């Protein structure tokens, strides 16, 4: 009987311990629980903020971010204007016969050179304005790195164009310009806003497609350097610069 009683008391104590004491202990120490929960929450939010800071610094220290969408639009308009003037020259050669084939090629080269210079100047101006506005220095290690990486494929492409001109395979000029420009953009995309690589892929695809569709160089050229630039510029402006 005694052992039965003992067992009963034990059982009671067991219940008491489990259903009263532990909850009471928790209630008594609930502030501690709250504090530690708050502490961990804070730590977690802090971690998230830290990761954001790290990402931000890593990007800003490696990428040139002042490239303005307007530069793209301006370059596109220059290229379209250039193509329009070029079609006029073609008309002169085909219909009026007022210029020779050699003169036509020279005109093309002059127009292309002017377009390149004008687009470069506009790109410079808009980028300068944007870096002023964002209060980021325009010339830094990131600018230098982007330009170098842009220039390497472009210069290689330049030699190809010179040789093609010498060999008089004129139909190859537009494909080579587009392809090497696309490669240059893809190469430089690691050092500036990454979206530019999609522009690069599009230029590359157009360039390669043009290899099998000879005779339409000017149209491909206008689409690649004109239309794509304008589309790209507007998208970039919409995404990053719209207030």
């Amino acid at each position: 009987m005694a052992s039965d009683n003992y067992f009963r008391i034990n059982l009671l104590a067991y219940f008491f311990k489990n259903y009263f004491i532990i909850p009471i202990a928790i209630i008594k120490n609930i502030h501690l629980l709250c504090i530690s929960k708050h502490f961990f929450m804070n730590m977690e939010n802090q971690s998230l903020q830290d990761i954001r800071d790290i990402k931000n610094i890593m990007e800003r220290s490696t990428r040139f971010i002042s490239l303005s969408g307007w530069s793209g639009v301006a370059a596109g308009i220059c290229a379209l204007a250039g193509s329009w003037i070029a079609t006029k020259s073609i008309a002169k050669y085909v219909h009026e016969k007022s210029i020779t084939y050699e003169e036509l090629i020279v005109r093309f080269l002059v127009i292309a050179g002017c377009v390149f210079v004008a687009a470069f100047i506009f790109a410079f101006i808009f980028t300068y304005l944007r870096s002023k506005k964002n209060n980021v220095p325009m010339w830094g290690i990131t600018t230098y790195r982007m330009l170098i990486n842009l220039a390497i494929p472009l210069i290689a492409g330049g030699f190809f164009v010179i040789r093609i001109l010498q060999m008089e395979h004129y139909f190859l000029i537009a494909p080579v310009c587009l392809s090497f420009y696309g490669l240059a953009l893809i190469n430089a995309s690691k050092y500036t806003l990454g979206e530019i690589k999609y522009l690069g892929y599009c230029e590359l695809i157009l360039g390669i497609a043009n290899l099998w569709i000879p005779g339409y160089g000017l149209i491909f050229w206008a689409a690649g350097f004109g239309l794509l630039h304008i589309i790209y510029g507007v998208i970039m402006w919409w995404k990053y610069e719209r207030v």
Partner: protein
Amino acid sequence: MSNLIENLNKTFDNRIRLGIMSALIVNEEVNFNTLKELIKVTDGNLASHLKALEDMQYIKVKKGFIGRKTNTNYTVTKLGQKAFTTHINALEKMIKNMK
């Protein structure tokens, strides 16, 4: 929980030190003025945190000249790289825990 916090490196508690390490990890070397622009701090503040990291042997200092101006470049050491990676992994775990 507790071992998560242990993995967080006390040295990187500070925003400026975290910024310095982030920039050095992704660049071969970064000079003083670039760091100053990136993190947006005063000279003295930046210098003291650079000194702290240098004392921990997380970064190396290379002093040079461009013309007459001093040009101080910083690079991350193997030790610093390891410490930073551990810290990032701890942060990542912490965030995963949140969900």
